[in-house]
């Protein structure tokens, strides 16, 4: 198991968003999470990538506990700063809004963190960044700035930036939701390519055909719980739960 989250609870101002969710990802597995907005999908990713702190439960990466519930106070506690640095290094996140650094060139966007956070040499970081850009099909954009790129190109840079940190697992939070329809294809294509290379990934998405094509497992979330999960064909074509069926019917038009 690369990631194991057990009995995760998370609320905002008394509103329970994640209700005792348990969820694990195996090495090389591609998991898609679908569900209506407000179902807790994004919050789950944000807890897994430590952007949000959990209220209770356990998060373990590579078998090591990053967060757990203290038995006396029954509050969630996190590992020390040094260990957290290691855990953060295990996971990467691609945002819906890309969140590239506008003042850095495309190349700097990809090389800055490896150089400054991981201590990689500038030459190695740049060579790796150019490889990644080639893979994303935008090697000619290395010296451009984010504002000069289309949304689809920006998102591919964001994927390259996450990959440059060599994460064990890569999370995608609705990676194509901010894109014009004609640009989603190019982003989905590179994610598919990563799946074929056995990159471990968790993808929150509304692209059902894509989820079916790329995932090993699909999870349907609603109201802060996992309603149903399993083989993409089963969940997306023959869901056993009524709520899943209702949700999917919206996409059939």
């Amino acid at each position, binding site marked *: 198991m690369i990631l194991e989250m057990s009995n995760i609870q998370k609320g905002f101002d008394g509103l329970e968003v994640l209700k005792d969710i348990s969820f694990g990802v195996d090495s090389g597995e591609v998991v898609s999470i679908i569900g209506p907005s407000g179902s807790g999908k994004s919050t789950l990713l944000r807890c897994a*990538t*430590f*952007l949000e702190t959990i209220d209770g439960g356990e998060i373990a990466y590579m078998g090591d506990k990053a967060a757990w519930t203290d038995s006396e106070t029954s509050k969630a506690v996190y590992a020390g700063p040094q260990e957290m*640095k290691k855990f*953060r*290094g295990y*996971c*990467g*996140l691609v*945002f819906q*809004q890309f*969140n*590239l*650094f*506008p*003042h850095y060139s495309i190349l700097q966007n990809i090389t*800055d*963190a490896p150089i*400054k*956070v*991981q201590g990689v040499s500038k030459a190695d970081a740049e060579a790796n960044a150019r490889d990644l850009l080639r893979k994303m099909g935008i090697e000619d954009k290395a010296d451009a*700035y*984010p*504002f000069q790129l289309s949304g689809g190109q920006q998102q591919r840079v964001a994927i390259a*930036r*996450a990959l440059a*940190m060599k994460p064990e697992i890569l999370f995608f939070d609705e990676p194509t939701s901010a894109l014009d329809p004609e640009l989603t294809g190019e982003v989905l294509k590179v994610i598919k390519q990563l799946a074929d290379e056995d990159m471990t990934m968790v993808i929150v998405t509304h692209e059902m055909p894509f989820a079916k094509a790329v995932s090993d497992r699909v999870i349907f979330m609603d109201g802060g719980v996992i309603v149903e999960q399993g083989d993409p064909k089963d969940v997306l074509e023959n869901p056993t739960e009524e709520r899943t069926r209702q949700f999917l019917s919206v996409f059939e038009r």
Partner: protein
Amino acid sequence: MEFSVMLTTMAGGMLKTGAIFVLTLLGSLPLGMIVALLRKSRFMPVRALISIYISVIRGTPLMLQLLVWYFGPFYLFGFNIGGWRFPAIIVAFVVNYAAYFAEIYRGGIESIPQGQYEAAQVLGYTKTQTFMRIILPQVIKIIMPSVTNEVITLVKDTSMAFTLAYAEVFSLAKQISASQTSFTPFIIAGVFYFVANYVVEIVMTRIEKSMDYYK
């Protein structure tokens, strides 16, 4: 008095005006950043103190603040204030301008989208790295027009040192004009302030242009 003599006499005042201007910027630009960061402190008393400081500074005339900084030590503590004139002027200006710069910085910092912090955090940047490498460069670009405004105001505000009879350009102009019954010193002073601000505009525009490479 001949024009050339007037000009030479006033040149000394120009240097003093320049000294107030430079020292105020050197002090208030960094101090303003510290104030802006303290305003976001986790400790309520610190936040309260900073917000009182900004309110008082912005709510009272700079001229009054100059008088308080200069005469305060004598009236409040009975200190000998000989030789305190110039330091008092610099302290008053720095403390005053730091409050305004702090508010400009705060506006800039708050306009950076949360996503920038989150992207940096996920990539493993420390808080200091995030601020210095990701946030601050973008803030500087955003606040440049407001800073330019403030710097231009400062050039003109230096004339308030006249309140403490400090011999900068404006005080000298007034003195010479009175003693020589001549209008010329005011014209010299006016041209000086205008040219100084023209230079400020050119320099600030250059700096803004140098950050035009991204949006």
